C-alpha cells in the first residue's frame, strides 16, 4: 500500500461522500479540494458551483480564491452574485453545501467569525461570507475540518452558520427547512449526527487512528457509534489524482 498523509485521507474520505450528478455549492480551501477530487475520480458529472457565480465549473487547478479566472473559464455559465444567491441557492437548486470552519460544536454549528467576544475579539476571523445561507438553503451539508480540541469545542464563540442548533428538532424550530449537516470528515475520523439527538457521533475511523486520539482531539466527551467502520485507505488512483491536482495547483499559484 502506498503511504499517504492524514490530510490526504481526509480529502479522499470527503470526496467519496459526493455522489455523481449531485449539485454541490463549494467553499474554498479543503471543501474545494475534496469536491474537485470527487469530480476527477468517481463523480465526473458532479456539478460544482462557486459563490462567485460560476456554474458547472471544471477547474484544472484548485482556485486560490473563490473567484479565480480558472473557475469562470471552465464553467458552463457564469451568473451575477445576486442571481447565484437568489435563484440558485435560495431557489433550492443545490443538493450539497460543502463547508469548512474554524470552530465546530457537537451539533455541527460552525464559527468563522471571531474567537473571543464579538466586540473585543481575541482573533477576528474572516466572517460568514456565503456560509450562513449555504448552511440553511442547501439540501444537506458536508463539513471538512482538521480535528483538534481547539477547533472541536464544547461551545463555539459565535454562531456563524447553524448546524443542528441545540440538538433534537431545534434546527427546524428555528426555521430551517433543510437537513443540515449530515457528515463531518476530519483527518482522524468521520462523524454523523445521531438521528434523534443530532449529536455528532463517530461512525468511521481512519486507518491507524485510535479512539484515544479522537477523544483527545475533541473538546466535548465525544460519542462513538456501536461499531464504527474502518475508513478504507485511499486507493492508488485516488492518491494519484489528488497529488497531480495539488502539484498543478502549486505550480499555478507560484506564478509559473
Amino acid at each position: 500500500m502506498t503511504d499517504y498523509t492524514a490530510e490526504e485521507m481526509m480529502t479522499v474520505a470527503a470526496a467519496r461522500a459526493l455522489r455523481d450528478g449531485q449539485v454541490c455549492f463549494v467553499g474554498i480551501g479543503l471543501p474545494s479540494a475534496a469536491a474537485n477530487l470527487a469530480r476527477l475520480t468517481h463523480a465526473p458529472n458532479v456539478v460544482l458551483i462557486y459563490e462567485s457565480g460560476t456554474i458547472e465549473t471544471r477547474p484544472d487547478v484548485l482556485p486560490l480564491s473563490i473567484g479565480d479566472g480558472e473557475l469562470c473559464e471552465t464553467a458552463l455559465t457564469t451568473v451575477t452574485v445576486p442571481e447565484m444567491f437568489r435563484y440558485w441557492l435560495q431557489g433550492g437548486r443545490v443538493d450539497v453545501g460543502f463547508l469548512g470552519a474554524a470552530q465546530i460544536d457537537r451539533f455541527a454549528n460552525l464559527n468563522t467569525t471571531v474567537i473571543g467576544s464579538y466586540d473585543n475579539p481575541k482573533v477576528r476571523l474572516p466572517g460568514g461570507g456565503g456560509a450562513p445561507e449555504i448552511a440553511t438553503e442547501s439540501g444537506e451539508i458536508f463539513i471538512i475540518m482538521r480535528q483538534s480540541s481547539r477547533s472541536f469545542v464544547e461551545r463555539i464563540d459565535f454562531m456563524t452558520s447553524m448546524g443542528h442548533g441545540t440538538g433534537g428538532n431545534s434546527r427546524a424550530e428555528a426555521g430551517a427547512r433543510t437537513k443540515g449537516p449530515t457528515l463531518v470528515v476530519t483527518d482522524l475520523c468521520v462523524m454523523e449526527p445521531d438521528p434523534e439527538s443530532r449529536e455528532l457521533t463517530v461512525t468511521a475511523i481512519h486507518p491507524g487512528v485510535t479512539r484515544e486520539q479522537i477523544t483527545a482531539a475533541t473538546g466535548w466527551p465525544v460519542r462513538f457509534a456501536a461499531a464504527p467502520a474502518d475508513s478504507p485507505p485511499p486507493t492508488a488512483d485516488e492518491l494519484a489524482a489528488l497529488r497531480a491536482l495539488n502539484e498543478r495547483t502549486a505550480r499555478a499559484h507560484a506564478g509559473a
Partner: protein
Amino acid sequence: MAEITSLEAAIAENVRDGDTIALEGFTHLIPFAAGHEIIRQQRRDLTLVRMTPDLVYDQMIGMGCARRLIFSWGGNPGVGSLHRMRDAVEQGWPRPLELTEHSHAAMANAYEAAAAGMPCAVFRGYVGVDLPKVNPDIRFITCPFTGERLAAVPALKLDVAIVHAQKADRRGNVLMEGIVGVQKEAVLGAKRSIVTVEEIVDELGGGPNAVVLPSWTVTAVAQVQGGAYPSYAHGYYKRDNAFYKAWDTIARDRDSFLAWMTDNVLNRREPLRRAS
C-alpha cells in the same frame, strides 16, 4: 453621459470625505488603481462597502481612509487574514474601524434592492445565527401571503460606486465580462459612479445579453490599463496569486506595510504590474 477623464480627476471630483463608497468586483476586476488614487488624495472618514474587503480595503484601512466597513467576508482569499483590517479592529490602528457585518446573500440582495430603488431587501436568510444580535440592520418580517419569517436588510445606497471593466466606447458605455459579481447593481444603486477600464474602443462588441452599463448611468470613465492588478481582468491578465500570498508578509507588520505603500502607492502614479 459619462465624462471620459483621468482617474485623478474622477476621484477628486466624485469622492468626498465622509462618503459611503463601494469599490466592487468579486475577486475579479477589483479597482485597485482607483483605491490607490483615493489613498494618494488622502480621503478620510469613508464608509467602505464591499462584500469581500480584499487587499484593496486592507490597504485603504491601513492608510487611514476608513471610519466604517460594511462587509460580509474579510479575509485574504485562500491565504488567511487581512492584517491591516484586523489591526484596526483589534488595536484601533491607525484609527478605530466600526464594523457592520452581513452575509454574502444579504449584501448581494441589498445591492440589488438599491439598484431597484427599494428601501430594503427581503430574503430567506440569517436563520438561527448570531449576526442579527450584533448588527441592528438585520431584522425580520413576516410574509403577508404565507406567514413565513424572512430576513430584511436596508438597501445598500451608495454615494459613489467604483468598478473596473474591460472596455468602454468613446461615448462612455461600459462592457464587463467574466465574473461580474455585484458591479452593475452597485453602480445603479449609487448617486455617482466611476468606472476604470482596460481600454477605450470604437465598438464594445458584446453580444445582445452582455453586461453593459449605458453611458448615462455612469458619472466618469477613466482608462487605466492594469487597473485591477493584482486581481485580474478576464481576457487581459491573470490574478497574481503569488502577490496575494506575498501580501500576507508585507501587511503583517505596520512598518513593512507603510514602507510598501510609500514605495508602491504614495510615490508612484502608474498602476502596479506583475513583477515578472
